[in-house]
């Protein structure tokens, strides 16, 4: 009887696992500010441009990304730019101050996609003029490096003189990690400090499940999250119980403070020196496109 009910419950849970989302084409992840997928540039040029863009970001927090692709494959350059911008998240999340310079080699198309927060400085007319005056003529002579360098310099010059005008974006992107989640995690850890003292193995799962449900009610997350909560609960209960036993055995203090609520070792995030991705900015089709 119990098993049957449990099976029913799990089957019921599985029904919710796949919330529907509209999928777009998946573009490759950025490798840096300069992403020369079409191999138009020399490694020295990429290096030089990367340094320039990293410096500019350090000064202004504005992220300028360059992407070259071989072919649009029947898509428009405007669409491709919006998709890449969306997936890479160019610019700071709260300022939307990113710019994407997209070059499609075989289609001979250029698009400057401007993040919401920079639309007032790099307006469409400015972007169009940069494409026509700086890029198109150099590109016609297959001098891609020269064209891109001139465009980047023109963009930076414009951003530096007009940066006083950069307004904070009014556009709010999708959901972020809510503060409620962090609070829940704290609560979670606190509860487990007690659970580690209990004998049952499933209590953690039960608590996890209910916290997951509570989180769903508050934040409207998918049902998949609840399963993760339950599994996390079971795992943490097990982990903390082990830790508790070990500490007990070793005769160490098991108080809340000395065991960090059950975490005996501190975890530290080590960041590698390489490119860590862009900062989550968004755009809405602003900028200009052109060809050569």
């Amino acid at each position: 009887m119990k098993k049957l009910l449990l099976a029913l419950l799990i089957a019921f849970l599985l029904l919710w696992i796949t919330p529907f989302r509209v999928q777009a084409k998946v573009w490759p992840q950025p490798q840096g500010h300069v992403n020369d997928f079409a191999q138009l540039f020399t490694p020295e040029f990429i290096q030089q441009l990367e340094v320039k863009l990293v410096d500019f970001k350090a000064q202004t927090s504005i992220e300028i990304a360059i992407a070259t692709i071989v072919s649009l494959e029947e898509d428009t350059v405007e669409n491709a730019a919006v998709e890449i911008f969306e997936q890479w998240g160019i610019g700071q999340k709260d300022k939307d101050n990113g710019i994407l310079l997209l070059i499609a080699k075989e289609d001979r198309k250029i698009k400057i996609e401007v993040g919401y927060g920079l639309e007032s400085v790099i307006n469409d007319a400015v972007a169009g003029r940069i494409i026509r005056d700086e890029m198109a003529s150099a590109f016609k002579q297959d001098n891609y490096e020269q064209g891109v360098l001139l465009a980047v310099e023109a963009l930076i010059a414009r951003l530096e003189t007009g940066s006083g005008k950069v307004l904070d974006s009014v556009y709010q992107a999708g959901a972020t990690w809510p503060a409620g989640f962090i609070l829940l995690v704290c609560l979670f850890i606190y509860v487990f400090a007690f659970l580690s003292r209990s004998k049952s193995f499933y209590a953690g799962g039960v608590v996890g499940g209910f916290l997951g449900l509570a989180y769903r009610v508050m934040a409207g997350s998918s049902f998949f999250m609840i399963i993760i909560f339950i599994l996390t609960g079971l795992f943490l209960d097990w982990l903390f119980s082990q830790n508790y036993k070990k500490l007990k055995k070793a005769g160490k203090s098991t108080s809340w403070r000395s065991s960090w609520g059950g975490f005996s070792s501190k975890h530290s995030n080590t960041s590698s020196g390489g490119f860590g991705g862009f900062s989550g900015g968004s755009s809405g089709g602003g900028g200009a496109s052109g060809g050569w």
Partner: protein
Amino acid sequence: MKKTLLIILAVAVFIGFSLVGTYNNLVQQNQAVEAQWAQVETQYQRRFDLIPNLVNSVKGLFDQEQTVFGDIAEARTRYSGATTVDAKAQAAGQVESALARLLVIVENYPDIKSDQATMGLMDELAGTENRVSVERKRFNDLVRTYNTNIKQFPTNLIARLFGFSPKAYFEAVEAAEQAPEVNFGD
């Protein structure tokens, strides 16, 4: 027997929470669709703010093309008077096709299209059309997510219970779906 009761209670609580959770989820999706519609309207407004400039810069130059200007003005009036989303979308579609025609006309006058000021205006206009199509696509994506969710079992039961109905997609006018091509290349 006490254990069975406990399990039944747990299942009941679970279903109760699920109901609330699903309901809240639908409310959020509903709000997201409405917020995105506001974003589409913002871009429409931007377009209307732009049109007078463009019209003024080219109007005197070709008097024989008066019908286009008349069409734009009429569609604009209709947009301001529209109250429902559908009516607004339709009026916006008319503006779009009239503008596309205007761009073709400008293409045919080399003197005008090489003028710096006009070029800037055309960039702005093309950019606005692109913004409109981007925000509209996002609107449709959100509507599709919402519609699919409220039609799927078991969410559909909850949606029906609380009166969540499917939303209409934004249908772009045929042939005006793409931003009008402005090509100043030679």
